[in-house]
């Protein structure tokens, strides 16, 4: 019995190894698409070689878009922009992202899978530059251009990046908040996290803007994971401890949703000025009814669109600008009907 188990383990190992040995030679017999176009690869060689031949033969152009997130409305808007570009330029895309922005390993695996699927280019919103480096190097080796989107990746392998200038956008929110509270009093910023670049940039952009106002006292920055409930609790705790707070900046959709809940539950609407980031139904409704004075919006649709567009340009050998600024805009209740804004905002 015991011996049998050991044998079973050994057999599994052997089969696993046999798989490796088998793959290289059998490539053309199993991948039907590849076999049709690559008679030259019939005498074996390596997988990558077979793949490359397929690409050259002008099959459909595949561009995987590997995002930082997925179910969040923001990423869904990015996805829509990416799909629009895919339609327009007649390419096939997939849109994948890990369940949370902490799941770096999930993103790495998504990248690995995408690279095995014979892509012509790759769009990537990296969660961590170091962690995705092996995948980027592999892309470089195979000659697959990589386009960054949403936040920058400090690597030469990235051809260009489509992103919002988060620091400038958060600074704009800061100046607007200062104006709203008459440039004096206590304020604080509620951020999604202290590890992501967007979190860091928005926090720092806001804090730097606040330095222009000597009469404004900035309290400790709060981090709520972008989670509505957690952000609500944090905002309420700070408001209870400091009843004289004049304004709060919620640095992403979840953070500002928490601030909205807090001031509503504590009956402080109008007494505490709120300034938000991004859009989404909760924020838009709050701006409509005056709970939130205004917000800065990125243009997620443009981010997705520009990323795929840049990927197509790179495939065609055209020059891609290093930074593609996808813009931001400050908006209040008065602007909600502006048709230009309708494209940017999402519910």
């Amino acid at each position, binding site marked *: *019995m*015991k011996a049998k*188990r*050991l044998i*079973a*383990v050994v057999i*599994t*190992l052997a089969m*696993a*190894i046999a*798989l*490796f*040995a088998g*793959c*290289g030679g*059998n*490539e053309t017999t*199993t*991948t*039907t*698409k*590849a076999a049709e176009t690559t008679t030259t690869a019939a005498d074996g060689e*390596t*997988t*990558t070689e077979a*793949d490359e031949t397929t690409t050259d033969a002008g099959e459909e152009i595949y561009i995987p878009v590997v995002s930082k997130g*997925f*179910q969040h409305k923001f990423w869904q808007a990015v996805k829509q922009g990416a799909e629009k570009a895919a339609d327009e330029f007649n390419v*096939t895309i*997939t*849109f*994948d*992202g890990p*369940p*949370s922005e*902490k*799941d*770096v*390993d999930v993103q*790495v*695996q*998504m990248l*690995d*899978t*995408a*690279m*095995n*699927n*014979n892509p012509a280019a790759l769009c990537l919103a990296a969660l*961590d530059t*170091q*962690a995705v*480096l*092996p995948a980027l190097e592999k892309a470089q080796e195979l000659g697959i251009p990589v386009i960054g989107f949403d936040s920058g990746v400090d690597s030469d392998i990235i051809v260009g990046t489509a992103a919002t200038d988060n620091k400038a956008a958060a600074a704009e929110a800061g100046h607007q908040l200062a104006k709203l509270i008459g440039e004096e009093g206590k304020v604080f910023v509620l951020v999604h*996290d*202290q*590890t992501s670049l967007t979190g860091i940039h928005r926090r720092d952009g806001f804090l730097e803007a606040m330095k222009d106002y000597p009469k404004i006292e900035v309290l400790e920055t709060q981090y709520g994971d972008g989670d509505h409930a957690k952000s609500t609790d944090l905002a309420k705790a700070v408001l209870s401890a400091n009843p004289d707070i004049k304004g709060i900046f919620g640095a992403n959709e979840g953070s500002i949703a928490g601030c909205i809940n807090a001031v509503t539950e504590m009956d402080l609407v109008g007494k505490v000025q709120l300034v938000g980031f991004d859009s989404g139904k909760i924020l838009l409704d709050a701006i409509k009814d005056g709970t939130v004075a205004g917000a800065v919006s990125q243009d997620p649709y443009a981010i997705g669109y520009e990323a795929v567009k840049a990927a197509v340009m790179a495939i065609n050998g055209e020059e891609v600008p290093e930074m593609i600024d996808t813009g931001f805009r400050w908006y209040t209740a008065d602007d909600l009907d502006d048709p230009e804004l309708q494209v940017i905002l999402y519910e």
Partner: protein
Amino acid sequence: MSAKSIAKGGRINADTMQKFLAFSSLVLLYIIFSVVTPNFFSLNNTIDIMRASAVQGVLALGGTFVIITGGIDLSLGTVMTFSSVIMGILVADMGVPVWLGLIACIVTGALCGLTNGFFIAKMKIPPFIATLGMMMITRGLSLATTGANNKYFTDYPGFRLIANGSVTDSVVKAINPSWSIPIPNAVLILFGMAILGHIILTKTVFGRYTFAMGSNEEATRLSGVNTAAWKMGVYTLCGAFTGVAGILMASRLNSAQVAQGAGMELDAFAAVVIGGTSMSGGEGTILGTIIGALLMNVLLNGLRISMIPQEWQWVATGAIVIFAVYMDIVRRRKRG
């Protein structure tokens, strides 16, 4: 396990059946994806599936022991992160040699496991609560000890190779430069840990008591076994495996990611359960767990490479987990 199988005669067939079922589903799934999806069946992709299984697999191996005792360890994911964070602080910040950092990573995991075991076995706190507490504690400690800054091993070029390099490839290349068996070290370590786990579970007193405590803890205690001590041992072993997973994860990402890990224990348990280990304790195999981990990753990879939209990937994975547990219940009912 073996002792139990012999005692209840007919069970051998049922066990073999279960193992065969899990293994044949794995093979079947692999074949289906190979036929349906053009780019699935390739050397690179198969390697990536195994590589993706490595961290989850090692976590699941440790989890198998705990689950066989009828317990649970919700802190697997965050203890893994915390172990790699300690290694990151020692190696990246303090310049401690890498080998010492690796040991520290495993020891940190083992100590967290020991603490879990102490609270569960000595203080009689239910495993769910004790390990939930540990999950929160290690999650917080990972952030607190680093100021929420990820630790990078970029100054140690060899560090990435612990998981990503390939010893087998180097060896056969040394014999004949045109040969290649590029199995990543992470996969070799997974199989090595599996063999180690299998030996501990089936060939030692430790393994025998692990099963005994899961079947009937009270009876085991009354028969003169110091169940508290052995249980602490089980959680410590699980912690040590978690530390190894921490090394693999850190090497893979070339960094200790301070904020990740929470939730990975659930993926690991899914692998354990698919592999036929009972959540109520008393039975389970290492081979099953490995098959479970591979099955989940073949499924995930196959769905991704088939370009199935992500929302449906989750639906499919969830359905497989429920189906696997249901099969387990059906099997148990037949027997009972």
